């Protein structure tokens, strides 16, 4: 687990007075935000039909890369989690695992009507209706499905929000973890737990707020099993076969 005393990281909030009275620290923050907004890696978690609009948005016709956005294969190296359609309850568990693995700062975009309000699956027992109940969504791109122009427009909007320091959904996840965990427990059952220790991360990022802990996190701590390291083994065979 993350030792919160090991790496003291201070994330400065927009609107907060720069520490030490250094006039250049604010300039430096703005430069960081600007650079961040110009180099985004998308992890597109292709859940539904909306993923079909991404290849044209990525490739030569609309060419996302001219905006500094390119696809990324691993959640650990990605900045944007793109949910491209309806999320079934089964998928939502995997989405939560993926989201919590991503390094901060991270942004979530919900594409298609289904992520907004269930879309055409509003009556279905198997799909989650409202994505921002379970994770903070920075931007929704509505449409069924949105054209690549709309996707590009949405991504530019996100870039602007990042440059202005307004895309702070990931901080909200740490500050109000109890709320999000409560919604997840309501859907996945009370024994729901992820491998990520979000509370320790919240302390680590100095984003521990009054709503980080609550009755839902108490429930989590009651049954939470500590993570164990995976067994390291060479080959696929059982150890006794290796000996012989």
């Amino acid at each position: 687990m993350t030792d919160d005393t090991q790496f003291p990281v201070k994330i400065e909030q927009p609107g907060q007075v720069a520490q030490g009275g250094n006039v250049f620290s604010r300039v430096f923050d703005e430069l960081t935000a600007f650079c961040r907004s110009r180099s985004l890696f998308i992890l597109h978690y292709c859940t539904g039909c909306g993923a079909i609009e991404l290849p044209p948005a990525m490739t030569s016709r609309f060419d996302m890369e001219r905006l500094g956005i390119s696809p990324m294969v691993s959640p650990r190296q990605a900045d944007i989690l793109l949910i491209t359609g309806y999320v079934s309850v089964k998928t939502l568990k995997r989405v939560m695992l993926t989201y919590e693995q991503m390094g901060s700062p991270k942004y979530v975009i919900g594409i298609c009507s289904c992520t907004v309000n269930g879309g055409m699956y509003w009556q279905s027992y198997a799909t989650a209706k409202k994505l921002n109940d379970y994770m903070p969504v920075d931007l929704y791109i509505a449409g069924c499905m949105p054209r690549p122009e709309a996707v590009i427009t949405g991504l530019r909007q996100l870039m602007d929000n990042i440059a202005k320091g307004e895309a702070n959904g990931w901080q909200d996840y740490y500050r109000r973890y109890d709320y999000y965990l409560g919604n997840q427990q309501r859907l996945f059952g009370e024994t729901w737990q992820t491998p990520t220790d979000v509370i320790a991360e919240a302390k680590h990022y100095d984003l521990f707020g009054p709503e980080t802990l609550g009755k839902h996190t108490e429930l989590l701590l009651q049954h939470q099993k500590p993570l164990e390291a995976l067994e390291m083994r060479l080959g696929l065979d059982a150890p006794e076969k290796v000996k012989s």
Partner: protein
Amino acid sequence: MNEAHLPVERLSIILGEVKDVRVSQRGPRRTRLDVAADALPALLELLKGRAGFVHLSAISCVDWPKDGQFELVYHLWSYELDLLVSAHTRIARDPGVYVSVYDIYHPAGFFERDIHEMYGVFFEGAPDMEKFILTEWDGPPPMRKEFDSEAWVNDHFDWQDYRPDWLLELEAQGGGIVIPPDEQRFSRRGLPEAEDES
């Protein structure tokens, strides 16, 4: 047995060996057979062994709550006769138990497992009646007619509130979007906790 060249003729010879089969021709290459539940495995055995109906493409289930019955439809295709036969049978809805045809058609294992999950029909002799697609589902079988999907959704999910500023402006002027009262769905987050946890 005599050589019969027309597919339907050859089929009718086989069907003469099973009691109480009602045959209806739905098209040049589609035949519907209605058969009693206890005669269906014998019929499938005959169709597979004697008429080359080697391909079981699907088993479907229809819920008839007013009759208190499930209808099982076995879709069979013969590459020799180029004929699609759908064998219909009805079983009692309660207790909803039927025999598996896994020993005749191995793909039936998947279809029966799916029907067990969606309708709660238990197939005796099936190799696996565990959860199939809805691995994380603990509610009632969702494809039964009495399952109210909308009530389930209202119990388990919250709705998005859509109140943009431009709509509020229109409503202040007496306009707005007209939604019938029974179709209005708003977030229940503001409501008391007791109602929220229903």
